[in-house]
C-alpha cells in the first residue's frame, strides 16, 4: 500500500535532522495558521498563488530562493563547524549525516537558490525592460515556478522522511547506483531535479520566446538593455543544456528502478559516460547562472555611474561568445580521468578562451566607471565588490584549466574555494545587487541603505575570510568532502574558515534585518516616481510597483538606454504627459490555478516514485495530465481592463513624474 514507506523512514534516533525538520514544519504551520486565521488565504490565492503576472511570479521565485538560501546556508554552517572540530576526531556529525549535508548544500544552492534567484529577477525585470505587458506564456510561467517549488519541497521533505543523497551534488555512479546507495536518498535527489528541471526548461523556453518575439516598438536587438541580452544567452543555454540533465538523470533512474545498465559496473555500463553527460550540462549551467549576473552588474554599474554602458556592442559579442564556448569545455572537469594529452590540452585551452570575453566584460565595466559620477548605493557596492572578488576567481579558474596544474588541484579544497569564489562573488553578489536595485520597482519602496551596507561589508569580508583559507588548504593537499582528518597543518585554516562563516552569517542576518526595517519604514522610503535611482532602461518608466499591465502605452524606443533618452527629451520639451493617443482597453491573461494544481500532483507523483507507491504515482501522473487538459480546453483566458481604469491608474503616475521632471528642470 505504501511501498517502502514505514515508520523507520522517520529518523527518530537522529536528533539534528529531526529537530531541524521539526522547526521548519512548525514554522510553516505557524505561517499557515496565521494566514488562515487572519483571513489572508483568499488574497494569497487570488493575488499570488494563481497569479500569472510575471512580476508576482518573479517575486515568488526570489522568495523561494531566499528561503532556500537559509536552508543551504545552515548546511554550510554545519559543514564548516564539522571541519573545524573534526581534527583527529569524528566531530559532531557522523559520515552518513555529513555526507547528506554536503550533497544537499550543493544541490540546494545551485538548483533552488542560484537558479530561482536569477530566473526570478529575469521574470520580474525583462518584460519591463523590453517595454511589454507580460511574458510570452504567462500560465506556463506559473507552471514553471510551481514545479521548481515542488523540487525544493521534495528535497526538504527528505530531512524528515527518509534521507537525502550521500553522493555529492552530482550523484556520480557507481556510488549512486542501487548497489552502493540502496536507500531513497538518490531517488529524492533525482526526482526533485527531474521535476524542477521541467520547471526550469519551461522558464527557459518562455524567456527565450519573450526576448525574441515580444519587444516594444523600436526595441531592436541592439537597443536592448544588457540584462535582456544576458537573459537571452542564459535561457538559450537552459533550453540547450537542461534536456541533457534530464536525460542523464533518466538513465540513472532507469538503472535504479528497472535494472538497466547505463552507468553500472556490470554489463557494459560506463561511469565515464555519466561524467561526460553530467558535465555537458554542468558546465553550461555555471554560465546559465553567471551570464544574468553579468547583466545585472552591467545595469547597476551603468546606472550608478550615470553613464551608458561602455562598449555595448563589445559586451553583446562577449556575452554570445561565452554562450557558445561554454558548450565546448566540459571535459576540464575530469582532466585526471586518463584522457590523452591532446584532448586535455585542447579542452584546457578552450576553457581559457572563455576568460577572454569575461575579461573584456570586466574592462568594459571599468571604463563605464571611468568618467562617471559614481553613487555608492548598496547595489553599486555589491558590483565593485564583485569585480575585485571575481577577478581572483577567474585567475584560479584559468589556473585549474591548465591540465598539469589541475593534476594537483582537481577535487581539492582549492577547487572548492575557486567555485565558491565565482558563484558567491559572481552570482550571489549579483543576486543581492539585483535584489537591492529592483526591490523598489517590485514593492514601491526602497530598502534601508544603512543595513544594506552592513550586510554588504560583513558578507564581502566574510567571504574572503571563509574561502581564502580553503585555497591554502587546497595547496596543502586537502581534498573536498572530508568528514574528518588527521593532518595538523590543515587545522588552523579550517578554524579561520569557520570564523569567516560567522561573518557571513552576520551578513545574512543584517540583510534580513534590512528587509524588516525597510518594511516598517516603508512610508519614509516610498518611491513615488517609479525611478528611484535615476535609471536608464524602461522598467523605470512605469510606476513602482508597476500596474498589472506594466505600461498604459507601449513605449516607443529610439535608441539605447530608452528611458534615459525619454527623460532627456522630456526635459528639453518641458513635457511630461502623453498628449498622443487615447487610452484604450487592455487585455490581460486571466489568473489560473493550473501551475499550482499541476505542481501539487507532481509533488504527489514525485513522492510516490521515491517510495515506490505505484498507485499514487498513477494518481499524481493522471492528475497532472488532467490539469493540463482542462487548461487546454479553456474558453476564456483573458480579461479586459477598461480604458477609463487604465487612464485613472496611469494619471497618478504621470502626475508624479511631471513633478519629478519640473523639479529636475529647476535644478
Amino acid at each position, binding site marked *: 500500500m505504501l511501498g517502502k514507506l514505514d515508520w523507520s523512514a522517520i529518523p527518530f534516533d537522529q536528533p539534528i535532522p529531526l529537530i531541524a525538520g521539526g522547526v521548519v514544519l512548525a514554522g510553516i504551520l505557524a505561517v499557515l495558521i496565521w494566514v488562515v486565521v487572519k483571513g489572508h488565504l483568499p488574497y494569497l490565492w487570488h493575488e499570488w498563488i494563481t497569479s500569472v503576472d510575471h512580476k508576482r511570479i518573479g517575486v515568488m521565485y526570489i522568495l523561494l530562493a531566499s528561503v532556500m538560501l537559509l536552508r543551504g546556508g545552515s548546511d554550510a554552517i554545519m559543514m564548516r563547524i564539522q571541519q573545524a572540530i573534526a581534527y583527529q576526531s569524528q566531530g559532531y556529525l557522523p559520515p552518513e549525516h555529513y555526507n547528506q549535508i554536503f550533497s544537499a548544500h550543493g544541490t540546494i544552492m545551485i538548483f533552488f537558490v542560484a537558479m530561482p534567484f536569477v530566473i526570478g529577477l529575469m521574470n520580474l525585470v525583462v518584460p519591463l525592460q523590453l517595454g511589454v505587458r507580460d511574458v510570452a506564456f504567462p500560465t506556463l510561467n506559473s507552471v514553471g515556478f510551481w514545479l521548481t517549488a515542488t523540487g525544493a519541497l521534495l528535497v526538504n521533505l527528505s530531512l524528515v522522511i527518509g534521507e537525502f543523497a550521500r553522493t555529492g551534488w552530482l550523484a556520480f555512479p557507481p556510488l549512486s547506483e542501487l548497489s552502493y546507495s540502496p536507500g531513497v536518498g538518490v531517488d529524492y535527489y533525482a526526482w526533485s531535479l527531474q521535476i524542477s528541471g521541467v520547471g526550469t526548461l519551461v522558464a527557459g523556453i518562455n524567456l527565450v520566446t519573450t526576448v525574441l518575439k515580444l519587444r516594444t516598438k523600436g526595441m531592436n536587438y541592439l537597443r536592448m538593455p544588457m540584462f535582456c541580452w544576458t537573459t537571452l544567452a542564459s535561457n538559450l543555454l537552459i533550453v540547450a543544456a537542461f534536456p541533457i540533465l534530464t536525460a542523464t538523470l533518466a538513465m540513472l533512474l532507469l538503472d535504479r528502478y528497472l535494472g538497466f545498465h547505463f552507468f553500472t559496473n556490470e554489463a557494459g555500463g560506463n561511469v565515464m559516460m555519466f561524467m561526460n553527460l553530467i558535465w555537458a550540462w554542468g558546465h553550461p549551467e555555471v554560465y546559465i547562472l553567471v551570464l544574468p549576473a553579468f547583466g545585472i552588474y552591467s545595469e547597476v554599474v551603468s546606472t550608478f555611474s550615470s553613464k551608458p554602458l561602455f562598449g555595448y556592442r*563589445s559586451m553583446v559579442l562577449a556575452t554570445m561568445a561565452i554562450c557558445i564556448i561554454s558548450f565546448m569545455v566540459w571535459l576540464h572537469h575530469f582532466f585526471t580521468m586518463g584522457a590523452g594529452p591532446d584532448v586535455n590540452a585542447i579542452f584546457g585551452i578552450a576553457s581559457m578562451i572563455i576568460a577572454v570575453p569575461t575579461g573584456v566584460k570586466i574592462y568594459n565595466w571599468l571604463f563605464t566607471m571611468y568618467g562617471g559620477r559614481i553613487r555608492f548605493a548598496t547595489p553599486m557596492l555589491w558590483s565593485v565588490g564583485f569585480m575585485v572578488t571575481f577577478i581572483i576567481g577567474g585567475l584560479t579558474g584559468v589556473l585549474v584549466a591548465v591540465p598539469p596544474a589541475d593534476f594537483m588541484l582537481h577535487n581539492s579544497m582549492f577547487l572548492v574555494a575557486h567555485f565558491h569564489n565565482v558563484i558567491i562573488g559572481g552570482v550571489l553578489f549579483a543576486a543581492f545587487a539585483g535584489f537591492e536595485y529592483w526591490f523598489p520597482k517590485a514593492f514601491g519602496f526602497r530598502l534601508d541603505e544603512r543595513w544594506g551596507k552592513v550586510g554588504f561589508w560583513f558578507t564581502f569580508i566574510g567571504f574572503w575570510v571563509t574561502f581564502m583559507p580553503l585555497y591554502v588548504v587546497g595547496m596543502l593537499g586537502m581534498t573536498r568532502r572530508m568528514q574528518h582528518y588527521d593532518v595538523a597543518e590543515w587545522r588552523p585554516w579550517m578554524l579561520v574558515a569557520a570564523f569567516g562563516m560567522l561573518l557571513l552569517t552576520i551578513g545574512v542576518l543584517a540583510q534580513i534585518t534590512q528587509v524588516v526595517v525597510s518594511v516598517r519604514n516603508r512610508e519614509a522610503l516610498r518611491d513615488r516616481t517609479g525611478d528611484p535611482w535615476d535609471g536608464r532602461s524602461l522598467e523605470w518608466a512605469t510606476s513602482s510597483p508597476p500596474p498589472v499591465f506594466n505600461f498604459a502605452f507601449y513605449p516607443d524606443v529610439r535608441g539605447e538606454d530608452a528611458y534615459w533618452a525619454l527623460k532627456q527629451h522630456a526635459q528639453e520639451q518641458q513635457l511630461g504627459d502623453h498628449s498622443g493617443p487615447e487610452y484604450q482597453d487592455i487585455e490581460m491573461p486571466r489568473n489560473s490555478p493550473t501551475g499550482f494544481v499541476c505542481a501539487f500532483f507532481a509533488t504527489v507523483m514525485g513522492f510516490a516514485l521515491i517510495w515506490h507507491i505505484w498507485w499514487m504515482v498513477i494518481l499524481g501522473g493522471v492528475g497532472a495530465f488532467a490539469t493540463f487538459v482542462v487548461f487546454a480546453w479553456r474558453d476564456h483566458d483573458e480579461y479586459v481592463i477598461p480604458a477609463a481604469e487604465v487612464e485613472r491608474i496611469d494619471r497618478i503616475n504621470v502626475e508624479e513624474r511631471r513633478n519629478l521632471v519640473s523639479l529636475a528642470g529647476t535644478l
Partner: protein
Amino acid sequence: MNLLDPQGPVAAANSTILVDSVFIMLAIVVPTIVAILAFAFWFRASNPRANFQPDFVYSGRVEMVVWAIPALTVILLGGVAWIGSHQLDPAAPVPGTGSPVRIQAVSLDWKWLFIYPDQRIATVNTLTVPAGAELNIQLTSSSVMNVFFIPQLGSMIYTMNGMVTKLNLRADNEGKLKGLSAHFSGDGFPDMMFDVNVISPLSFPDWVATTAKTDAVLNEESYKKLMQQGIEKGRPTYRLEDPRLFDLIATQHIPPGPGPQLASEAGRSQSGGQDAR
C-alpha cells in the same frame, strides 16, 4: 602534504607550471584590481575634481586593448597548457635509476590495496617505494570511483572498476609522505589516507624479502574478504599467490565489491544480492 614542496620530478614540474601560471596572470590581474579601486574612488560623485564624461561610451583603441590583453595572456598560457599536458601526461614514463617498480593499485571500499606483481607481495594502506626508481602504476577500482593522489609526488588519476588507468611517478627523497583518495567514495572516504614510505634503493630488496615472509596470503578468496565495505586502521601485508590477481580484478573476473549489506531493506535484498552475486 604541501604542493609547493615537491618530492619528485612530476610534482616539481606540476607545481612549477602552477606557480608560473599564477604569476603570468597576476601580471594583469593586480593592475586591473588597482584600476577598479582607483576608478571607483576617483570618480565618486562627491569628488569635484573628477572629470564627468557621460559621452565616453566607445573607444576603438580601448576596445582593442581590452580584447588584446586577455587574448595575449591566454595565448601564452595556452602554450604552457599544451606543452605541459604533453610533457606531464600521466601515462608517459618518468625515467629513473635502477629497474622500474611495477605497482598495481586497487581502490577498495575504503582502503587502498597495492600489489607488487614482480615481487609477489601486496600491502594495504602503505605504499613502499625505492627512492629514484621509476614507478609504473596501474590502477583500477574494486567498486566505486576513487582518485589516487600523493600530493608531494604529483599528478592524480582516477580509479574505475573494469578499467585500468596508468600513472608514472618517481620519488626522489627518502622519507614518509601521505597519499589520499581525491574523489568521494562513501562513508569511509576520509579514512582512505595512506602512508607512502620512500626508502633507499638498497633497503628495498630487504623490505621485499621481509614482506614476502608474511603469513597472510592474498588470493581471490582473501581479496573478496578485503573488498567488503569497511575501514582498515592497520597496515596489513600479504604474500601474493597469483601475480595475475590485478588482471582478474580489472577484467571483472572477480565481480565488483558489494555495497552496504542492509538486512532491514527487505524490498531491496533481491536486487542488492544480484549485484553482489
